[in-house]
């Protein structure tokens, strides 16, 4: 029951708790003094024990009055100081932080990582500074990102960007709660932050799984979007009503909708789904509130829209029992089938961002998990090959080899075994495009 007491999982939680306990300690002292004296006086000077002539009409006593003005003032400044020093630590953003975008909206959290990866729970490596950039869609409402175990909280305000940071050395899963009232789903706007061993995090980060706990092949894009866009907060898949209509069996059905105040009947087809995602307030299914669903059009592209439509269609096929089981069944699907196929000449920069390279390799010279790729081409590098240090020049063949068999020659100072062998995951054309891109980074 009191597990929360021990959950101080961020580096500054101890300082926040110290500020808390110092203030509670001083307060408890004052309380005991005030109430103790009060109770003592009530007993000692109860009318049954005091004769009228023993009453003393003391009007003031300067030394005492000065004491109880000055001493509490000093104590107050002590409390202020500890609060301030904990706050300073909470708010001094580290420069070298791993930055994750947090999108809070009614009523879901989405986390967007530097490599474009999205998740519905926040996964972070242990022992690293994590900085969060908090956003809400401009037409949404206030939220507040709160992790009790880390002692951090900051409002998520539409139309502006707020920040917070933390660093946790304690591997584990912690609650994320919305602390600023945001409507019907407020108390369900929960998530988790999972602090992972760095290697496990890196492996997940380079993969294309929604969550490190996903078994088998990654989920289909439609389901991933259903989770990460926040649809699941309001639209169930089992026919139950959360906030909006359930997706179960809705495709092809006749529904009654309100169109600018007038009731009409329509069939849920592709066009209607498209409309509902882009302009949710246009035709609202009868009995549901208007203006709750956000306009998602600037958060998804054309292909993603198709994936969503496909996903909703699937919920109306009778053989579909549960989506996640379906996803597990389709193990045969190639690992990268969820990524849209590129049309035309391959774009190395896009591959760099979508295949996960950007998660570990910066382009500006800063050190992340792997070496920066700024000016890598034709640079001298000390690498470890089969335990021996040697010096090489990063030419085209080295770059190509590093993508295909990254652990053959590892740059000195970096860990071996972190980077997955992309040889099996990328086509030769894609590797060519990446190498070409890397050559261009000066």
């Amino acid at each position, binding site marked *: 029951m009191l597990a929360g007491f021990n959950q101080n999982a961020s580096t500054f939680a101890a300082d926040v708790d110290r500020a808390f306990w110092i203030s509670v300690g001083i307060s408890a002292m004052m309380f005991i003094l005030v109430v103790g004296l009060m109770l003592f006086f009530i007993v000692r000077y109860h009318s049954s024990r005091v004769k009228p002539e023993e*009453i003393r009409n*003391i009007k003031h006593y300067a030394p005492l009055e000065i004491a109880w003005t000055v001493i509490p003032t000093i104590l107050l400044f002590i409390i202020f100081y500890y609060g*301030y020093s904990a706050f300073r630590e909470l708010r001094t953003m580290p420069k070298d932080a791993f930055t994750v975008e947090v999108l809070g909206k009614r009523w879901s959290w989405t986390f967007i990582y530097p490599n474009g990866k999205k998740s519905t729970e926040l996964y972070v490596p242990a022992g690293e500074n994590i900085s969060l950039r908090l956003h809400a869609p401009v037409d949404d409402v*206030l939220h507040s990102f709160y992790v009790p175990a880390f002692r951090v*909280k900051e409002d998520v305000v539409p139309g502006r960007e707020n920040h917070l940071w933390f660093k946790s050395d304690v591997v584990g899963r912690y609650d994320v709660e919305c602390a600023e009232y945001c409507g019907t789903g407020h108390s369900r706007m929960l998530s988790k932050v999972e602090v992972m061993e760095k290697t496990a995090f890196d492996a997940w980060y380079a993969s294309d799984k929604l969550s490190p706990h996903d078994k088998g092949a990654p989920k289909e894009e439609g389901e991933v979007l259903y989770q990460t866009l926040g649809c699941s907060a309001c639209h169930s898949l089992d026919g139950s009503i959360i906030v909006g209509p359930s997706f179960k069996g809705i495709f092809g059905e006749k529904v009654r909708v309100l169109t600018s105040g007038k009731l009409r009947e329509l069939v849920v087809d592709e066009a209607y789904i498209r409309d509902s995602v882009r302009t949710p307030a246009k035709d609202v299914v009868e009995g549901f509130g208007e203006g709750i669903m956000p306009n998602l059009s600037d958060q998804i592209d054309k292909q993603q829209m198709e994936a969503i439509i496909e996903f909703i269609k699937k919920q109306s096929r009778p053989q579909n029992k549960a989506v996640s089981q379906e996803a597990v069944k389709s193990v045969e699907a190639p690992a990268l089938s969820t990524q849209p196929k590129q049309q035309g000449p391959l774009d190395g920069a896009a591959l760099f961002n979508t295949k996960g390279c950007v998660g570990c390799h910066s382009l500006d010279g800063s050190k992340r998990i792997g070496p920066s790729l700024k000016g890598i081409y034709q640079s001298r590098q000390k690498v470890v090959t089969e335990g021996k240090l040697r010096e090489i020049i990063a030419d085209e063949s080295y770059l190509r080899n590093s993508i295909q068999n990254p652990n053959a020659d590892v740059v000195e100072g970096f860990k071996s075994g972190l980077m997955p062998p992309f040889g099996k995951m990328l086509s030769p054309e894609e590797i060519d495009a990446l190498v070409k891109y890397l050559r261009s980074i000066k």
Partner: protein
Amino acid sequence: MPSFYHETQTVFGTHKNPVLQWIFTIDHKRIALLYMGVMFTLFFFAVSAAVTMRAELFFPGQQFLQPHTYNELFTFHGVTMIFLFIVPGIAAALGNFMLPLMIGARDLSFPRLNLLSWWLYILGVVTALSSLMTGNGFADTGWTFYAPYSIRTDAHVLSTLSAAFILGLSSILTGLNFVVTIHRLRAPGMDFFKMPLFVWGLYATAWIQVLATPVVGITLLLVILERTLGVGIFDPTKGGDPILYEHLFWIYSHPAVYLMILPGFGIISEVLPVFTRRTIFGYRSIAISSASIAGIGYLVWGHHMFTSGMSDLARIIFSLLTFLVAIPTGVKIFDWIATLYKGSIILATPMLWILGSIINFTVGGLTGLTLGAIGADIHLHDTYFVVAHFHYTILGGVVFMFIGGLHYWYPKITGKLYDEFRGRIAFGLMFVGFNLLWFPMFIAGFLGNPRRYFDYLPTFTPFHQVAGVGAVLVASGLLLVLYNFYRGLKEGKEAGANPWNGTTLEWHIPSPPPLENFSKIPYVDFDPYEYENGEPIVQFDENFRRVR
């Protein structure tokens, strides 16, 4: 001598119909009772809403309410308790009744304006309740109406803000009336430092009402600009800033907190000397601390916004200023405790409520320090810790003081005595119940239970269950208070002019008072709480000449 219940003056002259005699009366005592009747009716509705919520929260998960209904309930509870009950609160009800009696005046300076204030209050109540109920359902924004949620929801924010504006106007007029009355109508000889401390509390309150309340009007004007002309002020889709709304809201609503509490402090300072049979300790420091709380209270609103995204420097400054308010508040509490020293303490019902309120308010005030410590507040903000803190100050503090004051002046207002035994039982129920209800919430908040949660994580179940039991005790305590007052009216003993051996002027006139209070205005050249060997020093004859 006929009392004010038997004869009255109305704004239109005379009426035969007793209802008209009441609702058009310009007698401050009748107007006070009009306020009291409406306020306590609303109070009991809002308590019912609270008990309903506690029942829903008794187990985790959904019991019998929809999440949306729950949100509507806490909005109703907050709006009613804050805007309709506790802000007009002690000042409009007990203050209206007692102020002229305590300074030796026949009425307020502007009796007609006083009636207008009540009518505006009624208009405000009707507007507020109807704006909550019209629209597409009941408002579910919480009593703070934060933008942009209040803009996105179907609730009628414009009319709710209009209600706040009308109530504000009523409040400003009452404040103005009090300030002028205190400056102009004190009995001859009574300088500022011979006024009873309840009057000092009302004086500080009145200035807050006059100076802080106009911000509500400004906010309303800005919302109208935004809604009708499309000027982006609070709505980010129009380029506005939701945080500006928070600033404007709290610039009024934080001083409003002191507006609630200062008259309550005044009641404590009245009751203590009477039931210790001695003069109050530190009269001047209590009087001046009321004024300085009112002053500093304007400068601390930002502590409601420590996680809002306001600049870090501003947060630190607001944290520092917040601690400054604690100094005069602490001084008051020490003065009260010192008043118990070498007195002769009588634990009558008003005294129990007052002592209980000091204990509760001390907890509320001290936990306010923890919340003011900015690093700790980041964690505690918007959790049950905050909810517990302000219920300790407002319910455990102000409402206890209010009820204590009602018991204290009940004989003066009604001419009857309530049953002492029932009064003490009701206090016991309420004191134990209140602490059961709210203390666990401090822990739940510290452990990370956010406020305004329809549902909670199962780890928090024990706290909510203890609170549920406490809520039942609080509700039954309140009902017992009400029943006791009702029986007192029916079968209470005659109180006489001064059943408590009080010293202030209201105890020198009959209970209930006659229409214009004082047949002759007394000359006041003595301090308000003068006892000798446990007996009031000053005595008047029937023509208000001092005989002792």
